[in-house]
């Protein structure tokens, strides 16, 4: 990994240090610089998004025009992509004529995919003890069942036994402990990952 893209590494480190110092000490010189760099980063992220989308289009075009093993489904990608892009560029993204592309195509498909997740989750949970039998899996499933019952609203009526209501209410805060521990651990990992980039140890940008 040595001697990979020294200029790019210098840019990454320099920009990172300036923006970080701008976060820590919003001094007259650092803060505007940080804002400017963040603004440029947003622009570059958008350009990168466009480049990647064009790459995606090229991949599907190649699949469609491949001499062998053509992927005819790619045609539907192009049929979805080109008109949307054309209409959007023509009318603008906020135009009412564009909205049905979201409400009538994206929303039902996405919602149906999320709906499919229900079956996926149910099957995974049913098979969990068969695939990975351990006390942790058992506790995980027990917790899932308890919170499913608690979230189903069955015990939110006066008819429900009070001791069950109280027990479930008392258990409600328990996930907070694990969640906080996991979040703190993830923050530590993120901190070290960011520092590795700032030190030039990780250089995913280099070719």
């Amino acid at each position: 990994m040595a001697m990979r893209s020294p200029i790019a590494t210098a840019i990454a480190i320099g920009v990172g240090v300036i923006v970080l110092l701008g976060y820590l000490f919003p001094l007259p010189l650092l803060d505007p610089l940080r804002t400017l760099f963040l603004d440029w980063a947003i622009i570059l992220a958008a350009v990168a998004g466009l480049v990647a989308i064009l790459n995606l289009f090229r991949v599907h075009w190649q699949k469609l025009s491949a001499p062998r093993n053509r992927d005819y489904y790619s045609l539907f990608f192009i049929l979805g992509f080109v008109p949307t892009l054309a209409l959007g560029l023509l009318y603008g993204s906020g135009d009412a004529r564009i909205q049905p592309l979201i409400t009538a195509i994206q929303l039902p498909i996405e919602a149906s995919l999320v709906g499919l997740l229900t079956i996926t989750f149910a099957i995974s949970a049913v098979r969990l003890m068969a695939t990975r039998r351990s006390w942790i899996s058992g506790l995980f499933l027990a917790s899932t069942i308890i919170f499913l019952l608690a979230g189903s609203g069955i015990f939110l009526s006066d008819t429900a036994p009070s001791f069950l209501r109280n027990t479930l209410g008392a258990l409600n805060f328990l996930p907070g402990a694990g969640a906080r521990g996991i979040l703190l651990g993830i923050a530590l990992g993120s901190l070290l990952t960011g520092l590795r980039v700032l030190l030039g140890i990780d250089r995913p940008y280099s070719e």
Partner: protein
Amino acid sequence: MDTVICPQCGSVNPSENERCQWCLAPLHPVQDSGQEPFSVDLPDWLKDIEAPSPPPESTEEELPDWLLALRQEGESTSLEEPLQPESEPEGFLAPDLEGFLSLGKEKKETPIVPSSPPEPSESETFPSWVNQSEGLTHAPSAFEAVPTSQPEEGLPDWLKALREKEELLEGGTPIESGEESTPPTLAGVPPTLEVEKSPEWLTDLPSASTEDKGFEISEAALEEQEPESSAVNRAESLEGEPSAAVVPPFTEIPEDLTAWYEEEPVLFPEEQPPLTSTPPLSTDEETLSVESLDAEGEREEFPLGTPPFSEEEYAAWLDQLNLEETLIEEEVPPQVPAFIEEAPTETTLMSEGAVPPFIESELPQWLAETPTDESVEAAVAPTAELPEWLEAMRPVEAVAPLPAQESEEDARIETSGPLAGYQGVLPGEPEALRYSRPPVHAVRLNVSEKQRAYVALLESLVSAESAPISLRVQKPISTTSPVLRLAITLLLAAVLLLGLTSGTPISGLPSLFPAEAVAFATTANTLASVHPAPRVLVGVEVDAGFLPEIRTASVNVLSDLMRQNARLVFITTQSNASVLAITLAQQAAQQVPEYALSEQSLHLGYLAGEATGLAAFAHQPTIAVTTTWDGQVASNALPLLGITGLQDFDAILLVTDSGERARAWLEQVRPLFPERPLLIIASAQAAPYLAPYMQSGQVTGLISGLVGSMMYTRLTQKAGGENPALWSAYQMGSLTIALLILLGGLGSTLRAAFPASKTTSRR
């Protein structure tokens, strides 16, 4: 020759073996030395000088063998140990051993040594200074001319040689500066040659000593010798009075040389390794008279493969060794520089080689175990100065007669047998009676933690070798059977459709409300009390796929805000959420016909950069977003009138399906909006994520999922707001999934337990 005798243990090995299969000593040293000139080794030597401590690995590998040998072979081991160094420095020592073996055989035909094969090579390898000095160059001729029974004639040559050397020394350089002193002795010889040949010089020393072996040596000379020589020399002299023979020359040694002896006592232990590594049975033709006899005796008394050392051999060899050492003391002065140069390297070689018992780290134990013989104690130098070779000889000394009696024995001259004319080479019967019990050497090792760690690591490696290696076979990926998937799918579909069509929930509608829901409903419906037209920032951070879950709640809350004549400013960091926000606003506005959506609400649209853009917006809302969703100038819009910063909003309402996205708002926006209410309509999957933020007060109110939607509807008393069909399907679906999970878990556990019980019953 299809077999080779090990020069160290004398056992028979196949000729193709490079090392002895019993003691691992090199069997074909001549080729080795030929292949590896010392000039090649020199860098390693220098490295070793820089780091003289031997690597612990070698210590661990060798120590147990050595102690085993001590325990098993007893006295014979004590005889062998001094010989062990022979096999160690391959470069110059091995040829001598081979030469010795060959000479031993040749002796039968020709007692005249100069014609023996090794001679030319030996003479070639002499250092230049040796070639210059008559003494040694003449020594062989003198030996040829005069048998050992006529030593007198050998003496003048030898003295001449010594005097020449002393002259060289007097005209020489200070002893400490070894490099500078060598040029005169090595005139015209390149340094590498010096390095290459200096060990040969050491091997030649015994030749001189054995040459003088026949002399009658007075014991008085020993007394003179002792004060000058170091403790090491005293230890030597205890076993070898002949050293007295070299005393007179020492009297002529200049002061600086004796000074060197006193100044550099530490050098003695370092000096000795070359001596110990010098073969007592070296191949020099001068030693033939004794060595060939030993070799012959070896051939006669011990068949090949048996340890070649008898007591007679030991005695002869011991005397010879003593002479070597004492003579080396003579040779030292002119050679001190080279000596100093080489001593450490030899020591290092030994420490790295196959003779670990001699490493310095073992000395203290040795001393602890040494017999409390007065003479020995007198001979024992401070630990740091005790040479390894002497340590090796200690067991020999332990079983050897006492010095005083020794002197009597030495007076005895052999009258018959191959040793006729020699004195003190064969111990007599009385000696056998006086033998003392050999000392018991400790087998306890002084092993450091690091060494223990290495041993443990080695053991683990060895055990890992024998452990079965798991084949790289991946666990079979168990897939869900299509039947199970289909069954669960159909069951869920049936239950949900039943719930939707029946519209009769298992339990009644929620009548108990958690605090966060109550806080949400209360805050959302009392904003008008804060401001007649409360300005609410509405963040819509939801994917289209998750919107249906919170659509009802969002629409109801927005409509309640519209009833309070709120000015709504919509913003999102999701690309397609702007359209969703518009549809939500439109549906909410349908419930509040008097609300002018286009005037009182504003869609700032997509905020690029997600958390980064959100942070920029939180700092300077009007600068971060300058245009509306449909391209109008944002600052001119009614809802943003009077808004200069985030704190100008009366409340923030966040509609999200993800705890992560809610976190971005709580981390980037909430710190700049600390006192006003922040309400969240969240998906059920985000609720556990937001619970800690709720506890910490960062979130004012929260409703999540379909349950939250139902609660809000109940709390705000919306007529017909509830959807019992959805509610019953939701409850039935939740219970069905919980039941499926329970059954699946129990079934798997029982399936796993059942065969186990069967096998146990079989047992």
